[in-house]
Structures are given as structure tokens and as C-alpha cells.
């Protein structure tokens, strides 16, 4: 099981690498899918089943689907593909950063590791991930309202940035 979790962790980093070294967003989104599926797996291993399913539904089923719909409307006619030299450059650069970070950070012991599962809450009778979301509606209602306002603001910002079709200079069509 440990090796399986380690494999999921490697897939997470490789997914991030695919996103960062993408030649065009249509191919980079594959890295996002891989990274989020594997991230759900990691959350499940810690016992946070509710949050993992929320991530799956909202991220993959909401954000990525909307991304696919919007790029299908405004698609680049000749996007770059994986067989480009830029991909090798980006991928090599990020792998170098990762290797240097791990080898330098290891002996310096910058990070102290440990894993806490969702059942180690002490006197809680409800699991931590459920009760965390429930707190959004009780003690954390201020943050809830601010987060809702932030999402509404994001909508207005995106609408303002892409209005004007191709005269808006963010869209190509």
C-alpha cells in the first residue's frame, strides 16, 4: 500500500510537470486531469472521503468541463503538440529544480514529515472533513461570505476581460 501511495505521489508530480511544460493548453489539461485524479487518491488514503469526492466532482466535473467547452468555442487552429523541443526544455528545467530542491532540502532538514489522518480528531464524534465543511456554515460564515464574493468577483473579472470578441485582445477569435 505504501508503494501504491508513493506511485500516486509520483504521478501527482508528473501531472504537475505535464501542466507546466505544456506546449499548448489543450494538451496541458491532461496533466491537470492526472494530477487531480491522483490528488483524490491521496485524500482517500488519508481518510477524507467527502473532500476527495467534492474535489472530483467540482474540479474535474465542473472546472475542467467548462474549460473544455470554452476552448472548443475559441480553439487555436494549429496548436503546438507534445513533440516540440520546448517541451523538452521546460520538462528538463523543472526536473532539475525538483532534484536540486530535494537533494539540498534533505540534509538541511527543512521539512519535518508526518501524516495525520482524518480520524485523529480526539473528542470529535463527526469525521474531520465533514465537520470542517460544516464549520463553514457556523463559525466560519464570514470566510464563507468572502469566498462567495470572491467567486462572484471572478465572474465579473472574466466577463470584463473577454468582452469585445477579438478586439479585447485576449481572445484570438
Amino acid at each position, binding site marked *: 500500500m505504501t508503494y501504491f501511495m508513493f506511485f500516486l505521489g509520483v504521478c501527482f508530480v508528473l501531472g504537475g510537470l505535464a501542466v507546466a511544460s505544456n506546449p499548448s493548453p489543450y494538451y496541458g489539461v491532461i496533466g491537470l486531469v492526472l494530477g487531480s485524479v491522483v490528488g483524490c487518491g491521496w485524500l482517500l488514503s488519508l481518510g477524507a472521503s467527502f473532500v476527495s469526492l467534492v474535489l472530483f466532482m467540482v474540479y474535474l466535473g465542473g472546472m475542467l468541463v467548462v474549460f473544455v467547452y470554452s476552448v472548443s468555442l475559441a480553439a487555436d487552429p494549429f496548436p503546438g503538440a507534445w513533440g516540440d523541443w520546448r517541451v523538452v526544455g521546460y520538462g528538463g528545467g523543472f526536473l532539475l529544480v525538483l532534484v536540486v530542491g530535494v537533494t539540498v532540502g534533505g540534509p538541511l532538514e*527543512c521539512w519535518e514529515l508526518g501524516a495525520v489522518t482524518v480520524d485523529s480528531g480526539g473528542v470529535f464524534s463527526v469525521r474531520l472533513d465533514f465537520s470542517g465543511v460544516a464549520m463553514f456554515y457556523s463559525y466560519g460564515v464570514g470566510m464563507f461570505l468572502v469566498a462567495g*464574493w470572491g467567486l462572484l468577483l471572478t465572474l*465579473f*473579472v472574466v*466577463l*470584463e476581460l473577454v468582452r*469585445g470578441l477579438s*478586439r479585447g*485582445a485576449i481572445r484570438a477569435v
Partner: protein
Amino acid sequence: MNPHAKLIFSVSLLLGTTITISSNHWVMAWTGLELNTLAIIPLIAKSHHPRAIEAAIKYFLVQAAASTLILFSSTTNAWVTGQWDITQLTHQTSSLLLTTAIAMKLGLTPFHFWFPEVLQGSSLMTALLLSTMMKFPPLTILFMTSHTLNPTLLTIMAIASTAVGGWMGLNQTQTRKILAFSSISHLGWMTIIIIYSPKLTLLTFYLYILMTSSVFLALNTIKALNLPTLMTTWTKTPMLNTTLLLALLSLAGLPPLTGFLPKWLIIQELTKQEMATATTIIAMLSLLGLFFYLRLAYYSTITLPPNSTNHMKQWHVNSPTNTLTAILTSLSTLLLPLSPMILTII
């Protein structure tokens, strides 16, 4: 822009600033910073020409990367120490990451490269917002965590910022880029004193807001985006150009104007802390800034441009008079005699 959208963006700017400066939990501080970043993107890209869009995208990328670093720093600190209090950032790596993040947010050297280009791509009013209000939340975070940050790193960044702000501003002909480098230079002065006396940082910031607002508003009234335009406006608004001269010299830090007060107090405090070398270096580097402030002041009042007659003021002008500019310019030139009272207030 659509008035409803403009209202939402303005309210979100105020909301984000208020949330960050009044927060004691890292997640709320981060939320306020993200609200600010999101809300100002359409304001930068308002004119929808390619330079403005490029400036908006550069701003977004830099600020998003800095917010990510703030999240990493706070979550690492929470992992190690078990608490999310802003004033208790005790883990070394976290405070280093936070210093980097705040330097990126503010535009301190070596993370200053985005600032002149973003200012050049936005209108003068948006550039004023970017130089004053958008600096307030990161400076507040720096103020709250100042006792846990590395003094050597902050001093090096401060001296480098003053150097870069001075030297890079010398070759500029666009007024917004000149004011961007002036902002970087003033941030250097604010950062060098934050370890020893955070209240002087805030005083420098408040007086900088006064002075730079009066300069930006004056430039907005005469619509001077570059030096040639500045040279020909003395016939239209001679009084405004004269007060612009005084406001620019105040920004440069010349006594007996207001801008001398923060530099004077910072030099005094640094000397008391046995930092005479750093004091001398930063004071010398500010002389570079004095040169381009003097050049701006000279062009706004004294030079006769080659393409006009030696006429006096035009008989009919259409520049509106602005009370706010008058108030801010008076404050930014005449506050030095009140310095004992100011010292008791901060």
C-alpha cells in the same frame, strides 16, 4: 466600463484591502490579497489595447505567484508550529518564503521587473492605485511579521531597491515609468527601517502616498505621459506646474518640504542602531533619484520648448481645477514644521 462592473471592482478593492489589514489569520490575509489582485486586473486592462492587456497579464502572474508563496509559507508554519497567527511566524523557512513573497508583491529588488511595465501599460489613475493602495496590504503583512524576518536580507533588498530605482529611473522619458522607479526607491527606504522601527515604515508609507498622489493627480490634470508633453503645459496651467515642481522636490526628500521628514527620521534611527555604513549608502543612492526629480521639475516649469512662441498663459483653458489635487499638494509640501506632532501620532 460598465458602471455596475466598475462598482463591483471598486468595492472588491476596498473589501480586499480591509480584510488583509484587519486579519490575524493567514487564510484571511491571503483571501484579501487575492481579492485585490482579481479586482484590479480589469482596471489595468480597461483600455483594451495590447500594452494594457500585457500589463494586466504580467501583474496577474506575478501577484498569483507571490500569493502562492504566501500560502506555502503559512501552511508550512502551521504544519510545524500548529497555529495560523500572522504575528507568530516562527519557522525559518516560512519567514524566508514570506519575505520573498512580500518582495514580489511590493516590487522590491530583485523582484521589481514587473512594476515599471505594469505602470506603463495602465492609465495614470490606475497607476496611482497600483502605487498606493495596492502596496498597503503587503506592507501591513510585513509590518505584522517584521520581528521574525531576517534583517540582513531586508537591508540588502532595501539598498538594492534604492540603487535600482535611482539608476534605472535616469534613462526614462515616460512619466509613469519614472514614478514607478521612484516608488521602488521609496520602498527601499521603507524596508530598511522596518526591523528597527516599524512605525517609521508606516510614516514613510503614508507620506509617500500623499506626495505621489499629488504628483499623479497633477500629471493627470495636464495629461503629461512623457517629458515632451510636460514641457509644453506651462502655458495651460502655470500654477499647477509650479506646485508640481514643489511636489516633485518633496518626493526627492529635500528640506524644507515634507519628503525630508521620513528620510531624516530613518537616518536618525539607523545611526542610533549603529548602521552608519548602510545609512551613508542609501542616502548617496537617493541622490540618483534627485537627478530625475530635478529633471522633471525643470521640464515642468523652466524650459521653454522649441516649438512655441514666448507667449504667456493661454487665455482659455479647459483643464478642470481639482480640489483634491490642491489639498494633497499642500500637505505634501508643508507638513515638515508639524513633525513633532506627527511623531507623537504615529
